[in-house]
């Protein structure tokens, strides 16, 4: 004898079938996300903030740029999350920094490259222009922080313009024109920076940070750069390293050392204590941007703004104009 289905059991059956069906339908046909593309824009996914910035400067209204790494994120350690991978797969063009900067993204980028045009903005930079660290601090690879040298940054600008031109030939001329405009601004900053560094006395031209990120900046503007750790922040400092830096600072009477936004303040404080022990006093300058840009809605959220801020901060720290301990 079969029971007649009661009212409640009927509804239960409907729910069991209906709810998943509705969900699946919705998932299949749901409207695209807020990152939705306009018909006349193409989507660019950039890894670091810097790359994202130059992409925006050149692409302007024609591109939608998504940046994977936010402000303060360490590109050496960054691991792609699932939503990152989705962004990459849905892109029309992928731009990354290169020279092994995005260490943990190598595989993901390799996979993406099979289906989507992927370019390192550093592709066009000749090997000879890159800095090879004397020690093993980047596992035998060159220093990847090329963007601190405006001349190299202009090369990256060209690389991006060409990548855009290939992806969207209709607007190729515009991209190249935007690139030229941008390069003018970049070189103007370069000239201004050179002027600023004139204010720093010869023997004070030592930049000490907890991170060997500023090799290119030092080379361009005649600063000696010393860091506590290797270029990749995943390595841990040893006691000897701290002592060495303290010796260097004291011997050269450096007035300020700098904390980057992506490195623990403790490390810098430990150096300060060591220096004080040697009878010198070094201030902690304001934070510098080493691996990333600042927050998106601040001036330091662009390369130009970031460079201006960094150079102002370094100069005032080294000349002793502005002390923050």
């Amino acid at each position, binding site marked *: 004898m079969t029971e007649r289905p009661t009212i409640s059991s009927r509804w239960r059956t409907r729910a069991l079938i209906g709810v998943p069906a509705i969900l699946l339908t919705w998932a299949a046909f749901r409207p695209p996300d807020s990152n939705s593309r306009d018909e006349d824009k193409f989507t660019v996914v950039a890894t670091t903030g810097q790359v994202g910035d130059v992409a925006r400067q050149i692409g302007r209204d024609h591109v939608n740029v998504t940046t994977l790494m*936010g402000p303060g994120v360490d590109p050496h350690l960054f691991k792609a999350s699932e939503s990152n991978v989705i962004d990459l797969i849905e892109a029309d063009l992928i731009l990354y920094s290169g020279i092994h900067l995005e260490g943990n993204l190598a595989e993901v980028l390799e996979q993406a490259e099979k289906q989507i045009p992927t370019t390192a903005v550093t592709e066009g930079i000749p090997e000879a222009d890159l800095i090879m660290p004397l020690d093993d601090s980047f596992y035998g690879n060159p220093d990847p922080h090329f963007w601190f040298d405006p001349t190299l940054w202009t090369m990256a600008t060209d690389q991006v313009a060409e990548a855009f031109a290939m992806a969207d030939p209709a607007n190729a001329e515009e991209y190249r024109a935007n690139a030229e405009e941008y390069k003018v601004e970049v070189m103007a900053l370069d000239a201004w920076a050179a002027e600023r560094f004139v204010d720093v006395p010869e023997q004070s031209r030592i930049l000490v940070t907890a991170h060997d990120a500023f090799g290119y900046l030092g080379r361009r503007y005649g600063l000696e750069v010393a860091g506590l750790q290797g270029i990749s922040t995943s390595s*841990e400092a040893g*006691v*000897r390293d701290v002592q060495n830096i*303290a010796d260097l600072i004291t011997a050269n009477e450096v007035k300020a050392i700098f904390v980057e936004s992506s490195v*623990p303040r*403790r490390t810098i404080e430990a150096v300060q204590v*060591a220096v004080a022990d040697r009878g010198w006093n070094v201030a902690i300058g304001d934070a510098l941007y080493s691996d990333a840009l600042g927050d*998106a809605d601040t001036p330091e959220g662009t390369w130009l703004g970031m460079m201006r801020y960094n150079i102002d901060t370094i100069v005032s720290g080294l000349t002793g104009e502005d002390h923050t301990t």
Partner: protein
Amino acid sequence: MMAIIPLALFGLDVSWDATLRNVILGSVILGMTSGMVGSFAVLRRQSLIGDALAHAALPGICLAFMVTGTRSTEVLLIGGALSGLLGTAVLLVINRWSIISMETALGVVLSVFFGFGILLLTRVQHGGDAAQSGLDRFIFGQAATILPRDVTIMLVVAVIVLGVLAACFKELKVLTFDPLFAASIGVSPPLVGALLSALLVLTIMIGLQTVGVILMVSLLIAPAVAARQWTSSLAGMVLLSGFFGLVAGVSGSVASSLIDRLPTGPMIVIAATVIVALSLLFAPERGVLSTWRSRRTRAEHFRTILAAADHHGVSSR
């Protein structure tokens, strides 16, 4: 005090400055405390509880950062301590109310908490706050950057932990040796067990900065195992274990100051491991070498007797 130590230590090029002093002080405090507290964990066959608790601290550190936005070590460590204690509570509950073994429970707590911590860490990395990093330092530690105020905190915690250990020594002793008997005289195993776990959590807190979450367990286990080989009383073992921890702290710190790019935390752990290896091999009576030697001597002894018996015709024939 340290200033009177000669600059050339055994002819090694050691630079005795404030950095090395602070690092040594911190490592010594940590080594001593974790050696002593670890003795009880090892004897209770719960060595891995320290591992589970250390891993359980990670989500607390991340949450402390996410809630307060501070990078002040003290606040982060309090967060770590709280989630470590939560892990302890979960362990106790699982132990009491479920049939799964302690080992399984440890594995579960370790994985779940640590996994959650990594999840939070990844979220923080993806966030827009430009001051978020430094949290992943707690995974591997950053011993070389121990500051004077860190040493102060560590000293306060160590005094508390060792004070409690001394005051409750006999309760811990009877509980570790014979929990059933202990319960029968009113020393409640859950209570004292929880106390021991709390001491472990506090010790782990001061260790997180030095050797980090992953290596912390070795400082809890190695000195205790080493000490066990040399001594025959509990008090002796605890004190010797503290001493071994101290030695490991000093050696690791000094070693790290001799060569560039030698991270301090792992060096301390290596020093502790060397001490264990030497103890297991060379301790009298319990060491491998000693056992081997006495076995050989005995075998020779028996051979001699049997040969003499044969010679004198003492046989079944």
